């Protein structure tokens, strides 16, 4: 599918979701896998926008590219915020799952839902860019 570039602001989240939903539909992904993939990309994009761009006072874009082959749908998402590897946060968030709601820190859980929601999640740092890769197997 054609790549899209959106500004790194929260207003772009709905466009990102639309892109992921149309890729999922093109790959004939079922309803549940579609929802989980949308959630995964949305959560990581939200982290990049809030922590990587807004909090760091950096303006930037997000590039999304969907690739479909016989066995999988892959979404590549790139940004030029500071290096951040979501997989390093996964364990921490997983540990907080058992705490009662009123004792939880406000924050977290997004990375947990993202990584847990796809068949394979990969992070790469290439030059000054973060690349988050989401893979869903097609059955």
């Amino acid at each position: 599918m054609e790549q899209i570039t959106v500004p790194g602001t929260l207003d772009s989240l709905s466009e990102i979701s639309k892109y992921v939903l149309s890729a999922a539909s093109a790959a004939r992904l079922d309803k549940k896998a579609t929802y989980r993939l949308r959630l995964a990309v949305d959560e990581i994009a939200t982290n990049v926008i809030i922590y990587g761009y807004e909090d760091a006072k950096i303006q930037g874009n997000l590039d999304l590219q969907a690739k479909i082959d016989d066995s999988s749908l892959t979404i590549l998402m790139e940004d030029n915020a500071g290096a951040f590897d979501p997989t390093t946060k996964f364990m921490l968030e997983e540990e907080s799952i058992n705490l009662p709601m009123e004792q939880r820190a406000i924050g977290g859980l997004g990375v947990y839902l993202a990584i847990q929601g796809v068949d394979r999640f990969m992070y790469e740092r290439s030059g000054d860019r973060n690349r988050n890769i989401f893979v869903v197997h097609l059955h």
Partner: protein
Amino acid sequence: MAFDVTLEMENTTATITLNGALDASTAPKFKEEIEKVPTGKVKTLVLMMEDLEYMASAGLRVLIYTKQKMGAHTDIYVVKPQEMVLETLVKTGFDQSVIVVDNPPKIEKV
């Protein structure tokens, strides 16, 4: 993707109806409604979720904020969440801190 939230108050019950997609860009609207709920008076918070098609962790963050603001004595009911929204609540253990039901609780008469 659109998101709507409405708040109704009756006696000691506040009912919030959520509609559409709740993500980080729309969660502030949900939080604004929660902020309008008077903490001392309200004993039951009912979240009508039948028409909530999507909820990201930003929505969960508002639920944490709600629980902390209202205090442990306030019951939070989640009415008819859609299958995938419920999956997120279960995966993150939030289903242990709210009461998931098919019908809203009877409103207590004062």
